[in-house]
């Protein structure tokens, strides 16, 4: 059933004439060609599709398009400003918080949402906040270091 859905993606207004029960993940990836948000499990268990909706982290594979009506969606493509990486992206780059890169968008968006609600998390709070995001390559220690660096905490460097 087609209806008009209006929301903002990465600051830009978007209007779609489509079915409101569609899943945000696939609308982002197909209609809007924002492919940085990844499919990993389809049931909200891996976090590869994490985006931020009105300041809250959301699993795009568990979010209906209708539920973002009138809201602001931020995806990984929306973090950099005028070609300059967000400090969190920069920290992931510098600390090597990625290997294959497939979970990376979701990791960064989840951490972004974590820091929005808790700008100075402890290490335990970072671990707990990231616990539901899966990485198979084992970049965990560096992801934690990257987030901690942005959270203003000093971590031993790796080299």
């Amino acid at each position, binding site marked *: 059933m087609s209806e008009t859905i209006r929301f903002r993606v990465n600051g830009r207004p978007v209007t779609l004439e489509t079915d409101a029960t569609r899943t945000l993940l696939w609308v982002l990836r197909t209609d809007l060609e924002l492919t940085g948000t990844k499919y990993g499990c389809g049931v909200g268990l891996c976090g590869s599709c994490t985006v931020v909706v009105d300041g809250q982290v959301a699993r795009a594979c568990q979010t209906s398009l209708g539920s973002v009506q009138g809201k602001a969606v931020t995806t990984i493509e929306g973090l950099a400003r005028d070609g300059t990486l967000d400090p969190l992206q920069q920290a992931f780059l510098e600390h090597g918080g*990625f290997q*294959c890169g497939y979970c*990376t968008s979701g990791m960064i968006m989840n951490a972004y949402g974590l820091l929005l609600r808790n700008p100075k998390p402890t290490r335990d709070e970072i671990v707990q906040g990231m*616990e539901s995001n*899966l990485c198979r390559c084992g970049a*965990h220690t560096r992801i934690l270091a990257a987030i901690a660096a942005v959270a203003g905490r000093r971590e031993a460097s790796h080299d």
Partner: protein
Amino acid sequence: MTDATRLDRRDFVKLLGGGILVVVHLPRSAIPGLDDLQQRRGYPEDINAYLHIAADGKVTLFSGKIEMGQGVMTSLTQMAAEELGVALDAIHIVMGDTALCPWDMGTFGSMTTRMFGPAVRAAAAQARLVLTDLAAQRLAVPRTALTVENGVVSVAADRGRRVSYGELAKGQQITHTVDEKAVLRAVKDFSVMGQSPPRLDGQEKVAGTAKYAGDIRFPGMLYARILRPPAHGATLTRVDTAAAAAMPGVTVVHQDGMVALLAADPETAARALAAVRADFDVPAPAVDTESIFQHLVQAAPPANARESAGDLAAGRAQAAKTFSATYYNSYVAHAPMEPHTAVAEVKDGKATVWSSAQTPFPQQATIARALGLAEGDVRVMTPYVGGGFGGKSEGRQAVEAAQLAKITGKPVQVAWTREEEFFYDTFRPAAVVRVDSAIDVAGKLTLWDYQVYGAGSRGSDVFYDVPNRSVKVYGEWGRAPEGFHPFAIGPWRAPAANTNRFAAEQQIDIMAAAAGVDPLEFRLRNTTDKRMVAVLKAVAEAARWTAGVAPRKGGRGRGLACGIDAGTYVALVADVTVDAATGAVKVDRVVCAQEMGVVVNPNGARMQVEGCITMGLGYTLSEEVRFEGGKILDANFGTYGLPRFSWVPTIETVLVANDDLPPQGGGEPAIVNMGAVVANAIFDATGARLYRLPMTPERVLAELKKV
């Protein structure tokens, strides 16, 4: 198989617009250990590289390898930059494109650096020679008077007389073949190798712009979902696609045993699949998660005698103590975060396929066969791969996409769901290992009688000094008879080595404890291998190991394990805490000492060690694929437990220097000891010995009750 010299070299040079092209076709003798490796399964028949210096000075390295997170995009470029004498950012690398890159068997076996690396270095060194000779003519000086820096050749005594690589390449149509070992730069002269520059794939990956197979879009592309059986071995008896076919925008394909639903968006295709009514005949299960071990021993094909020395009976006769133990591990999934994905277009008798693949060239051949095309009419391109670990070799999804593209006449994406990924994964095989061993009164090994069923040979070689020994391998992965495993199995990060080190390093620990000897001292007493002694001493020092006999009990313990993999020596120490009430094991710290010859990129090497240790926690503590016959019971991350942030120990890595040895493998070695090092630490903490992987809380609890 494709001959590198078959490459249309003239066309290739024309395509590249002239300049200087260096083609490497190394003789096998140039690759140490290759013949031995080829006796095992799946090693390259040819190793090649191309390096091109364009008329505008642009340098391109063409490699059939792929980047799946292991960092070789960066390390290969570093090797080429070092030998060519240019800055890292002066080289562009093209990977995994069958139309542009030299034939390559695939990216696995920790071979990119140790096998392919020398070819890249040789190509770059040869190019540097060619360019220097051209400069010598141009500047009218002997070659020995010249020096190279940042892609500029200058007269050493008069730096103002200079010419750039681009100027030298302009107007040239030179093709050189390297078929001998070129003179490589000495380690002491390295300026790019041995450094840890930012990864070349980093910017795109953190920005979310890195392209994976599922991110490739063709105009008019259809998304396909395919009807899957409920179990391996099941046959389709009835299918009704009428309801799906009636849905707007849905294309139904039912051909050659494949039932596929295609639509302009993936959700419509999924709804169409859900509307299909199908019945399957599912055979009664013959084996399951628990009975598989007995089956593997009973159904085993004849053994391959991997090692045989001395006299086993004499080893028993000399024994003061003998030990017999059996070890088990279940099937394990690769579970890369990116499921298998491919996008294909078939047009004018030619197929173009983007595939998440570790093996673009073998997939090119497979797709060509499936479509009835010549190999040259199939182009496979591999963008970034979202994790492989050995699981992205077969290319079933690429064949499916190509077939559907051919049938429908439109570009088609096949992206497996997580459930399909768990179903069609080529699992790490379940295995059984039986070890009989013995020591004399001095705590020296006299006997090693080792039999492994279901896994394979890698990691089973005996590096301890034991005069009477036998290693027998039953049903090496990839060679096992049909039906030996109930579903597909395949290589999984250091194939078979995780199984073999889990057994061997526990057996060593059992003997050390029975002899009343410190585990480190016991190992040093029984090996004279200098590289092994070096990593054992290095890990002990870094972990601040103090002598003591296990088990020391008290709920906290430490373990030690060592091994050799992909030419690299590695030793681990782990500290664990065992919760006696729940059986839960927390790995608190892992210290790794690794000697891998010349280290191309130290930070990259450490990242791989950390990845191995973290990934290894999974098969050690939680990961197993449960099944009933051909039915896979674990279909997603809700029941299949991957390592999480809270599991991750403190990791300390020591890279033991050995610049006398060319670079060895780095992507796999550190994972092979994870099972044993944690098991040995659990024993130290509790006195309980865990013989089966994964060491789940239930299994730990069961063993604790026996202590």
